[in-house]
């Protein structure tokens, strides 16, 4: 930090503010495709000559994202330093008067994440492909909403870190299994999924005891109401 302090003495406040604004823009732009921001890329493409005051600028950018946009900057992968934005605001109870367009891929993702969660955290890929077939989504065919479904699931959702798609060792032919990705762990609420499951099956969510425990024990269940207004 003393290095940061020294670095800060060499730049004007206006320069720090401008870099902060660029970092905020960068996070917003990267969120268009929900691809996590790699710290190395942020330094290389945005901070450039100001890399030495990186911690201060990131701190300010996080504050702006929080206070102006209601978004939380979250490091989902501390080893590789990957960041994503998560919404601080809950989905409002009453329907908003503006019907903004929904992304059908969000529906697909919900189905896959739900199955993985309800099946205890990991499923073989065939479980997903078979289930999708029953929903008229054939991984071998071009789908009207999703195009190449296999690519969306195993490439796009994986790059966005919603899913992990890992080869199961010693399988012939090659088989993969699916788990929740690091973004999903932060962005998707297991207890809300369980609530929806309960509503769909007309059943008390608590009756899935294992899932219920998981949903309410993991750090994923951010059930502090009004946490976003504590500023």
């Amino acid at each position, binding site marked *: 930090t003393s290095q940061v302090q020294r670095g800060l003495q060499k730049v004007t406040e206006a320069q720090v503010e401008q870099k902060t604004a660029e970092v905020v823009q960068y996070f917003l732009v990267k969120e268009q495709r929900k691809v996590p921001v790699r710290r190395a890329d942020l330094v290389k493409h945005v901070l450039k000559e100001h890399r030495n005051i990186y911690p201060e600028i990131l701190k300010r950018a996080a504050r702006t994202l929080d206070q102006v946009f209601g978004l939380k900057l979250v490091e989902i992968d501390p080893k590789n330093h990957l960041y994503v934005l998560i919404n601080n605001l809950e989905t409002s109870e009453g329907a908003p008067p503006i019907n903004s367009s929904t992304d059908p891929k969000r529906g697909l993702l919900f*189905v896959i994440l739900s199955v993985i969660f309800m099946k205890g955290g990991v499923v073989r890929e065939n479980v997903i492909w078979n289930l999708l077939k029953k929903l008229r989504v054939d991984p071998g065919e071009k789908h009207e909403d999703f195009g190449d479904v296999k690519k969306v699931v195993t490439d796009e959702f994986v790059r966005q870190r919603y899913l992990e798609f890992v080869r199961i060792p010693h399988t012939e032919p090659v088989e993969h299994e699916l788990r929740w990705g690091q973004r999903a762990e932060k962005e998707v609420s297991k207890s809300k999924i369980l609530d929806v499951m309960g509503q769909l099956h007309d059943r008390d969510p608590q009756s899935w005891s294992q899932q219920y425990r998981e949903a309410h024990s993991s750090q994923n269940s951010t059930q502090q109401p009004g946490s976003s207004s504590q500023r």
Partner: protein
Amino acid sequence: GKEKATQLFSDGAAFDPTAFTEHLLSIMGINRLEDAEDEQQNGGAVDGYLPQDAWHRVARRAECCFKAAPSFHYMFGSFHAEPPPPKQRIE
């Protein structure tokens, strides 16, 4: 499948994917063909027609589970500002 799912309660394995898909299809607004006999003959493959916005309906139902950040889209600033080439039309 529904009864089977309720029998197996309070066990981690009690999740029934078949029941889940049935519920999803009804969220999607499936329009079953009247002739249910045919379905049985097709090896249980459920037939029916899904509306165009089927997956949008699922997405809307799922919205509350996601704390996704909205994203910012713009046109100005996405390309180099450049005046147009001089007009070639004869005025």
